[in-house]
């Protein structure tokens, strides 16, 4: 169930625009933040709020990289695997993360905290190798830095 507060906030936003559909990404991101991922139920709720069909929302939810249609951890780690980060050590950063979190790429750590996903260039080539965690950037990465970051996030969780 969607909390009334969130629903009302979204409905207010929707009432403000000419074409409800233009808010579909915002709505999906908001529901995803609430549920942790965009569940089937959330797809249907998004559709209902915007006067779309579930399929029409699904056409978009499955298109965008930052919409998760499957459960993810509290922190989604997006490691950049595009050219510059790849040259500057993506492979070892990825391996280090896999080993530290004891997961494979695409997996979620046993404590449910971290999901590791590769992502294309995040626009921080000047800080390669870089990664995003919940849309916040970190880089240039070293194993030491990664340890610190994970430590901090774990303690905050």
């Amino acid at each position, binding site marked *: 169930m969607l909390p009334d507060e969130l629903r009302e906030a979204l409905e207010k936003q929707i009432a403000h625009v000419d074409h409800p559909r233009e808010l579909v990404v915002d709505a999906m991101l908001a529901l995803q933040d609430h549920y942790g991922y965009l569940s*089937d139920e959330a*797809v249907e709720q998004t559709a209902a709020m915007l006067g*779309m*069909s*579930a*399929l*029409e*929302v*699904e*056409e978009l939810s*499955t*298109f965008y990289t930052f919409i998760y249609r499957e459960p993810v951890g509290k922190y989604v780690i997006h490691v950049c695997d595009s050219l510059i980060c790849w040259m500057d050590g993506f492979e070892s950063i990825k391996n280090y993360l896999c080993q530290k979190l004891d997961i494979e790429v695409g997996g979620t750590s046993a404590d449910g905290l971290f999901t590791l996903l590769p992502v294309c260039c995040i626009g921080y080539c000047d800080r390669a190798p870089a990664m995003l965690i919940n849309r916040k950037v970190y880089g240039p990465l070293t194993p030491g830095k990664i340890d610190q970051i994970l430590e901090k996030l774990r303690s905050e969780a």
Partner: protein
Amino acid sequence: MPKIIIDDRDIEVAPGTKVIEAAEQLGIMIPRFCYHPALGSVGACRVCAVKFLQGPFKGVQMSCMVDAQDDMVVSTTDEEAVAFRKSVIEWLMLHHPHDCPVCDAGGHCLLQDMTVSGGHGIRRYPGKKRTYHDQYLGPLIQHEMNRCIHCYRCSRFYQEFNGYRDLGAMQSANQTYFGRFEEGILESPFSGNLIDICPTGVYTDKPSRYFGRRWDYERSPSLCINCSLGCHTIASSRYRKVVRQEARLNEAINGHFICDRGRYGFSYNSLKQRPRTALFDGQTASIDEGLAVLKQRLQAIVDTDGSAAIACAGSSRNSLETLAMIKRVSQARSWQPPAYLIDDAITAKVKTAISVLDPDLAVEMREIESADFVAVLGADPLNEAPMLALALRQAQRKGATIAVFDPRPVCLPCEFTHLPADPDAIHTGFGAVINTALDAAVVDKLDAPAREFYSSLAAGEQTFTFQQTEIDTLAEKLKTCQRPVMVCGTEIVSRQTPALAADCAALLQAAGKAAGLFYVMPGTNAFAAGLLTDENVSVETLITAIEQGSVKALILVECNPLWQFPDRQRIEQALQKLELLAVTDYVNSEVVPKANIFLPTTTLYESGGIYINQEGRVQVVEPAYRGGIPIAETGNGDHPPRIYDSQIPGVEPQAAWQILAQLIDIGQQINANDLRTDIQHWLIKSESGFNQLPGLAQIPPLGTRFFQAPNSQKHFECQQPNGGSTDDGRLEVLVTERTFGTEELSAYSACLQELANAPCICMHSSDAQQLNLNDGDQVALELNGGVIEARLQVVENMAPAMLIIPRDGKLNWQQMETGQTRIRRDQIRKVE
């Protein structure tokens, strides 16, 4: 008009013609996947590449995306273009499962054709193939995503053309997936078109799965007889069974598509329980024996009660030949005038519609697509004539205003304004719109009768429940439109409405608009039936005659009053009272077991026939196959059958008109074809309504229209009825059609039965509230004839003080006394 040279040949084409279309006009078929004439160009598949040698474009370009322009020189055979097209095919085949041997699209697969013609034979790509999971999409369509080439035709047809929103493109890149959000039955009643439109085998026909390849089938141009529109189809048969039906392109009626009722409504033809032998008094007999007994018993009745004690009834599913033969025999034998339609009101409305539909007003269904204002008066397109709904959608997509004046909870796959008027207020509502829309200056210039009619429209300001603002908004649209069309139903409307609809159209025409008129009628051959029937003759009047004892013998020719007549008790009693009930039919209807004598007839697919659709279009259908019992039945599953015979088993049934002809002793002397010609001659000679009927050979494949009203002179004669009903607190009962489940022939199709919603009774929320009822409640209507029980559906979008009951075979709705249209609120109760 742009002139263009393609492959060294010039052609002049209409402005806006795409190069791919210009080439087609020259007979050059440029490969295509995403382009489809009904869906237009989107340039996604890239297989229509050609080389532009001269003109405003240069180099390899998509011929579907470029308008033909002057000075263009195009080559379809240029090396560079051919090489590119070959690459496109190679890409499209990278992941194709190469399962053509088990694919039902094999043999009529555009991808196969393009792969072969594009010269891609040897696989070079060493990589792995992508695979997808398929979805369950309901009983009509099999989904096989691995065959997909991502032309986007399905999602574009489904969402853009057809207006439904539960199938589309998901994922992206080379994972793009076409399907539904969740597995399940497709919502659109036009979903079967996905099968025709898919250029490969992603969507294939499920009921006929694995039955054969296109080249195995006898394919024959045919006609849909599941509603009055008469859409064109192709019937495929194999092993003495019609197994599949597809849409057949027709620029006047259905375009490229048909509805699912039409596509799958043919199962009755090959059902196991189809009666194929004559019966009398419960004994099987040959047709000749049956006929002999029939003649003998009819003679006995003539001897005791006179020939007027015999009556014959047909129905709007009869072919024109049968309808005519019923009349001819009845006249020759001095029986009662035959009945074709169910009651007097329907008969009167159909006859009126025919008499006022003149060539100046009548429009074809495809013309509705280019209307800019459509007023739907007492018709529920999706339920009564589904393809009409699709035509309305195309009009709306081009900007037309669609206004529906109808009490029912009408749904359309497009935006429209619904004014839920009760049947008596339909024309007052629309009249008010016209009255507001026309300028005084325009009105002043009209002839006196038109002016008078115009002023009568203002008088009807009584009881429609919608707002004046809605009337004003529509009037504003009507005022500026150029090509308005009135679509008028003949079922639920009051008797005057069909004529008033014509008057409205005529008035708008007089006021300078290119107005059109389009009727929807009850049944595929209702137009012809209406022309042949006498005023005040219907199944209802025959029943009265039986009750009064004046009719003692009844012959039902492909007519099942038990399906349609609202007072079941009455009709059952009447049938029982008869001394002789003879039935001839090709379906095992409920009256068959009640018959003293039964004679089996053939279907459209076996004997063909002439059908006249609701716009007066005469269409000839040739038989699709020879007939007989399906091999699956005779061989008990074995093939080939082990018993050999010189005669095809099960071909004894004859066309109803052939059987009837024998009652006046002309049937035996002449062969079937000559008999058809003979019937035509008789019609032309004896029936004034048919003296313009073209000879069989003169009827072109598109059919030909013939009109009763030669010009507009008859308009403006109809009196405005009193609008609205007096409110006595009772609810008016409307028994109506549904897309699936109420039309008699398609109701035999198992796959469509799966689609039919459980029948429910609709009521406006204000009435439900008053009665303390909720949506989903099981309710019982206690009627004089018995109780109707069903789930209640509470809706907002219908007229209040009404009950809408579907004429669904699964609901025993026929509990109404004749003439009873209103029930008291205390007759409705909730079933706990």
